[in-house]
């Protein structure tokens, strides 16, 4: 089991962005507007971990390194972790618990509406990430966890909408996400095609295999 030995290392690596931020904060090296830097950094890493989570499936299939699946939950939970830090930075450091203004932001500012939605949608995924929840939900677990597509799309839109003018960086994330989603569409289409060839109605078994692949 390769994953067994790598897991603690990957776990520590996932904490590096936070450690770096804490180190800079401790040394007053976050520049003129530290809260903004913390907001941006945690937001960026949320997106990065969402992309990493979504890249596990294509990566393990294409490289035949099936053991990679064992990292998916950890990466997904780190996306939620950095997303929570991002949201906490917003309501605590940035807004300082001004719930009235936060509520107004969520309703009136499209980029906050979509960002907040992405965060809320991540909550059930994090809560149902345990073995027990997986067993308990059965097939519904997979359906539920497809929400990550919505989360990632909303996250990228959140980034695109908040930028004033220079779209280069958010569009990089949009491009990566497009590739990751396109992979799923292609796999799904190919399966449908092969199903139609063998018989007109796809058998339940084949249907399941499509589900299993994403």
């Amino acid at each position, binding site marked *: 089991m390769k994953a067994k030995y790598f897991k603690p290392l990957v776990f520590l690596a996932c904490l590096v962005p936070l450690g770096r931020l804490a180190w800079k904060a401790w040394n007053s090296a976050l520049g*003129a507007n530290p809260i903004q830097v913390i907001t941006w950094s945690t937001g*960026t890493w949320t997106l990065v971990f969402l992309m990493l989570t979504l890249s596990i499936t294509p990566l393990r299939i294409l490289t035949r390194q099936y053991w990679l699946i064992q990292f998916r939950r950890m990466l997904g939970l780190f996306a939620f972790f950095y997303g929570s830090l991002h949201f906490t930075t917003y309501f605590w450091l940035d807004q300082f618990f001004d719930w009235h203004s936060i509520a107004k932001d969520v309703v009136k500012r499209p*980029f906050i509406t979509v960002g907040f939605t992405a965060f809320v949608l991540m909550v059930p995924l994090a809560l149902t990430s345990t073995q027990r929840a997986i067993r308990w939900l059965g097939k519904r677990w997979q359906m539920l966890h497809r929400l990550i597509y919505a989360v990632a799309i909303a996250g990228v839109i959140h980034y695109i909408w908040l930028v*004033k003018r220079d779209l280069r960086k958010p569009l990089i994330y949009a491009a990566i996400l497009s590739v990751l989603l396109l992979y799923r569409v292609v796999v799904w289409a190919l399966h449908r095609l092969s199903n139609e060839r063998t018989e007109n109605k796809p058998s339940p078994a084949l249907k399941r295999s499509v589900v299993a692949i994403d």
Partner: protein
Amino acid sequence: MLIKKPSDIPSSEITPKGLYITRRRFLGGAGALVGAVAAGSEISEILSPSQSALAGTKLQYSQSQYSTSEKQTPLNDITHYNNYYEFSTDKYEPAELAKNFNPFPWTIKVEGLANKPKTFDIDALLKMQLQERIYRMRCVEGWSMVIPWIAIPLSALLNEVQPNSKAKFVEFTSLKDPKRLPGQQRNVLDWPYVEGLRMDEAMHPLTILAVGLYGETLPNQDGAPVRLVVPWKYGFKGIKAIVTIKLVDHQPTSAWTKAAPSEYGFYSNVNPNVDHPRWSQAKERRIGEFTKRPTLMFNGYGDQVASLYTGMDLKKNY
């Protein structure tokens, strides 16, 4: 990823000022004067105009009743956290990218509907009556600073060219030179940067052309050698590195209005009651402070400027 390494210490802080100024003068070809540099500070009087005004040169100025007594933002924050899209869309980058920009020599053409159009040399501006104006600066992004500008009232310059009765607006244009201003190599905005004011706004005593900061000539990244400051408007109205000031009869279209008309209007007065479509303007974070403070109408300059807009719907004329 988005956290920048702390920028290198500007060369001005490593090399003693006297020394590097001497060096630049020498390199500037004023060889004959090098010996005289040692003689002392009077040297700038002897130098030819285009060589006398160097970045970081101390300026002579008087105080002004228009200055605020609020705590001033540290120079390092003013010079290392600002928007200057001609260099970068990242607020942490202009400091480094503008390091080698040489704003001298420089001239400002004041033209258009005036009786005596005139081209001003930057050195002539620096020799005018300079004043320190400590102003609040509110960025449209929701942060603010208190900046001690060294400036001349814009009206002083405009009065010299004598605008005629047809002049209703003033149009400002920045330098367009993608080689010297690398940010212009991408069409983030429609270069050059253009800004505009109504005539009465331009003539208002609070409206200034800043040529310095903290007692010295403007750092490159803050708009050297000359920039506009209109303290009751959002910061982006303060066009930097101005080359042309034109008196016109129509309302100019500013660069940001052109880019996103629904987000940036012509007036762009600081107004906590009119939100930017994508964020609230009710509060701001003063750089260096933890909690946000409420944003004041006209950035706290309402007593002086509110009368300019009587009868106007400021929600429509944002």
